[in-house]
């Protein structure tokens, strides 16, 4: 019998994979894609929640996450283009000027 716990398990694993990507890759494009993985794993949790608690609200939340993801990618990619133009690289470990 498929339950909420299955959804949760899968989304935790996917979230883990996404976070791994963010931590282990240095290319900004890869990091952005890994972030998308993480956001989608959350979507998976939410749809499970919606299904098993008979609730419409999580679906609205999914839509809002969609919006956030879209904006994040748009801004992040704009940033990537800009960085490439100015610094000739998208390696995030080389950008350390924002420190105290």
């Amino acid at each position, binding site marked *: 019998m*498929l339950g*909420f*716990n*299955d959804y*949760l*398990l*899968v989304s*935790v*694993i*996917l979230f883990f*994979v996404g*976070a791994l*990507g963010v*931590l*282990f*890759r*240095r*290319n900004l*494009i*890869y990091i*952005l*894609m*890994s972030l*998308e*993985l993480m956001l*989608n794993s959350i*979507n*998976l949790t939410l*749809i*499970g*929640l*919606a*299904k*098993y*608690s*008979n*609730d*419409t*609200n999580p*679906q*609205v939340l999914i839509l*809002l996450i*969609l*919006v*956030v*993801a*879209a*904006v994040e*990618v*748009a*801004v992040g*990619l*704009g940033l*990537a*283009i*800009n960085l*490439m*133009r100015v610094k000739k690289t*998208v*390696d995030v470990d080389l950008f350390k000027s924002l420190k105290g």
Partner: protein
Amino acid sequence: MKTVFYINALFSLIFALGVIFGKNPLRSALSLLLFFLTIALDFFFAGSEYLGFVQIIVYAGGIIVMIAFVIILLGLKKESPDYDITVRSFTGIILLGFFALGVLYGLAKSVLHLIPKAPYFDTSAAGIGDALFSKYLLPFEVASILLLVGVVLAFIFAKKEV
């Protein structure tokens, strides 16, 4: 049902790993597209066709195209994977392991008891729209402002002279 779900989940996992371990950025992007499609399938399984289609349209149709464009624009070539093999990353993996362990421990203890809230489960576009324009009007408007800000920011970042 369970079997189908887990087969789909296995595909999701494979594609996700394909994204993060890919050498060619464009291939990783295609892998991401397939991953999005598997998630959309999950939405269909859960009975929420509307969200499934939105997922396909927005992610596959919008975000992936955008990422692909940028990859081509920047001319990112196939390269040896730029893995970040440092103490920091391994600390991160250990922490993430603890995190995942926590979730699994929680699942084992069944901490989460779900209580059905509504008498029926409205997955139609109309039902979601109803919620969006009544109860969630403010978040909806905030999201629209966020989109607007995103548009302006992306425009500013991508402009030639910054």
